């Protein structure tokens, strides 16, 4: 081979090598820098935001509701049908999930469909068994489940989340916008193994996690309330019972229980009656507990004094063509004694001392006939007719809690106002809303809704209501060892078409403790207790149990200790 040929061949080889390198380089650059739709598969994924948690007043220590990442079992029916294994898949899933095979087969046997969800929120053990079976067309899908670790506990306040992930009752409904958060977006590409390649990730907008809601409810007080209500329903064969514990100075609700209850984890199997929060959604005639409001109004107007003596007609008084009875016959009684002994006739006569407009104005100022604006859904406004619709005897009947309907929360507001120097506070259960970074998004500040009575009248009423639980009063069973209790019993006949039932009653007790420096107010209502139906014997002991435990739990100084320290 000549030297010229060798040079030529070398030049050709170099040229070929150069062209190859340039070509490979260009291809490399094209693959890395150019559009690669044909090579990789784009995908867009919605990133679900975790729903925020709900906690009691102690913060993150006591969790009442949270979201858990779970899996749902889904099927691609067209794939299952085309593989001819409907029976095998139906048998396998039915066996593991404990569902009728024929139902599963019907759900799967739809060749024109690409998606069917067979079961939600499957436990880990069942998931593993399904994966091990390797059934064609069966896959697991991520899903967020809302769970309530304590089951029916506080169910009426917490509410529940429906299958679309929306809050449908209670705090879950009211604070849905905060709890739900905001979903994110991920745009990226998959490799040949159908795995996301991080470096090809396009847009990534992280999901904004839902905020946490902190309640004013105290888990331990709530436990006491629910236990006491369960015991009362059992003991008195009642249709239902409900109770609310409120902080007098702020209006914060420390506990709210209602019976019957339901488990929000399986809310679908509960009835409307079980789901109703009776403390705010059930209106009833308050009976004698309203006497306190009427007497407070009369004292505030100055039309009577506590020592004013009224004749109680020996238990039977005809007025406006209708007869009004007392439970026990009395002759002359002072206003103070009339309240202590819960005389209907005395209360009616006191009401007649007030101008009708004034009586209506006071009852309205105490919050009757309108919603208290508590931060829970389903609150009823109750019934307080305008004066124009009153009959001749209306004031006498309203004075004994008939012809007017209230919720337990409204009645609690009346007594709380007397305990709080006349200020009616807005009740609330949501203490604050915190973002995941700990920042406070919403904070509830105690707010006064008005001042129906003066400081002096409130102090007088506290003294009068305290006598109710003393010897000779109707609320003796509400007493608590070491503490002074003020309150009022109520035994209301339930209205029936054409009058009032003589067998069905609402027994209630509403009061506050300690009487000299009130900290908490509590109302207990028992629906249709049998055979004993008197508020002083049915509801007052429940009050005593709840308020006594709460006082000791909150470490409130007892009256004896207070006296000793003075």
């Amino acid at each position, binding site marked *: 081979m000549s030297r010229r040929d060798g040079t030529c061949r070398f030049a050709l080889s170099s040229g070929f090598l150069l062209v190859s390198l340039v070509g490979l380089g260009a291809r490399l650059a094209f693959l890395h820098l150019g559009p690669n739709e044909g090579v990789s598969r784009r995908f867009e994924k919605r990133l679900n935001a975790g729903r925020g948690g709900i906690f009691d007043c102690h913060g993150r220590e006591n969790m009442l509701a949270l979201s*858990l990442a779970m899996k749902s079992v889904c099927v691609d029916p067209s794939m299952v049908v085309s593989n001819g294994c409907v029976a095998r898949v139906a048998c396998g899933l039915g066996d593991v999930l404990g569902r009728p095979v024929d139902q599963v087969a019907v759900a799967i046997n739809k060749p024109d469909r690409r998606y069917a969800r067979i079961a939600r929120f499957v436990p880990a053990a069942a998931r593993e068994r399904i994966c091990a079976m390797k059934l064609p067309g069966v896959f697991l899908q991520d899903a967020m489940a809302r*769970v309530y670790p*304590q089951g029916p506990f506080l169910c009426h306040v917490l509410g529940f989340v429906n299958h679309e992930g929306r809050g449908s009752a209670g705090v879950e409904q009211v604070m849905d916008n905060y709890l739900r958060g905001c979903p994110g977006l991920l745009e990226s590409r998959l490799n040949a193994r159908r795995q996301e390649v991080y*470096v090809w990730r396009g847009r990534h907008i992280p999901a904004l996690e839902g905020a946490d809601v902190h309640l004013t409810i105290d888990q331990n007080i709530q436990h006491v309330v629910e236990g006491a209500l369960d015991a009362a329903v059992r003991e008195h064969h009642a249709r239902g019972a409900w109770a609310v514990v409120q902080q007098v100075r702020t209006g914060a609700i420390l506990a709210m229980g209602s019976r019957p209850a339901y488990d929000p984890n399986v809310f679908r199997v509960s009835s409307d009656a079980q789901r109703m929060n009776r403390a705010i959604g059930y209106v009833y005639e308050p009976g004698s507990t309203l006497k306190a409001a009427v007497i407070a109004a009369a004292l505030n107007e100055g039309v009577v004094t506590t020592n004013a003596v009224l004749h109680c007609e020996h238990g039977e008084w005809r007025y406006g063509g209708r007869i009004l009875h007392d439970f026990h016959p009395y002759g002359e009684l002072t206003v103070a004694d009339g309240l202590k002994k819960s005389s209907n006739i005395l209360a009616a006569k006191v009401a007649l001392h007030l101008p009708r407009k004034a009586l209506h104005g006071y009852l309205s100022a105490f919050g009757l006939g309108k919603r208290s604006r508590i931060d829970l859904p389903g609150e009823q406004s109750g019934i307080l007719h305008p004066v124009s619709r009153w009959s001749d005897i209306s004031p006498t009947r309203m004075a004994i809690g008939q012809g007017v309907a209230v919720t337990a929360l409204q009645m609690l507001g009346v007594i709380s106002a007397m305990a709080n120097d006349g200020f009616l506070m807005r009740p609330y259960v949501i203490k604050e809303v915190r973002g995941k970074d700990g920042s406070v998004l919403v904070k509830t500040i105690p707010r006064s809704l008005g001042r129906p009575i003066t400081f002096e009248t409130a102090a007088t009423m506290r003294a009068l209501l305290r006598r109710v639980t003393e010897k000779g009063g109707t609320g003796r069973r509400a007493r608590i060892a*070491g503490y002074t209790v003020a309150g009022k019993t109520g035994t209301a006949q339930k209205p029936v078409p054409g009058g009032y039932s003589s067998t069905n009653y609402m027994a209630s007790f509403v009061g506050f403790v300690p009487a000299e420096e009130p900290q908490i107010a509590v109302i207990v209502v028992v629906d249709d207790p049998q055979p004993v139906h008197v508020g002083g014997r049915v509801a007052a002991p429940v009050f005593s149990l709840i308020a006594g435990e709460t006082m*000791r739990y909150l470490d409130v100084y007892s009256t*004896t*200790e207070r006296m000793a320290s003075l």
Partner: protein
Amino acid sequence: MARRNRKRARREGVAFPVPFVGIIVLVVSLGLVYVWLDCQCNALGKAIKTLEIEQQDLQKKAGRAQFRWAQLKSPQNLDAVLARYSMEMHVPQWNQVVKLDRPALSDTRLVRSRSHVRAYAGIERDGRDE
């Protein structure tokens, strides 16, 4: 001879021109650096992805642990556990509790401002002695 040698030298120079080799080396080096960087990015991407998955798993585990913990420390469960062991616990009555008043805030401030370097126990003793 001298003329022939010059031609050979020119031919050899054409066969391996320094700029050409330089360009080749540069291109190959750039390519290698690019590939190395790409590998590094991919490795980091995989690591981030793995950590993301791990984080998600841990979040799920934390959620389940929180759920379990909330169940365990719920008052109902505590009652059930106490009942299982035949134990009864009640909140003490008011007369079963001994309360000790805290020293007034103003006194504490005074003591701290006077000597914050001394031991707390010493401060307490001094305060009592006075």
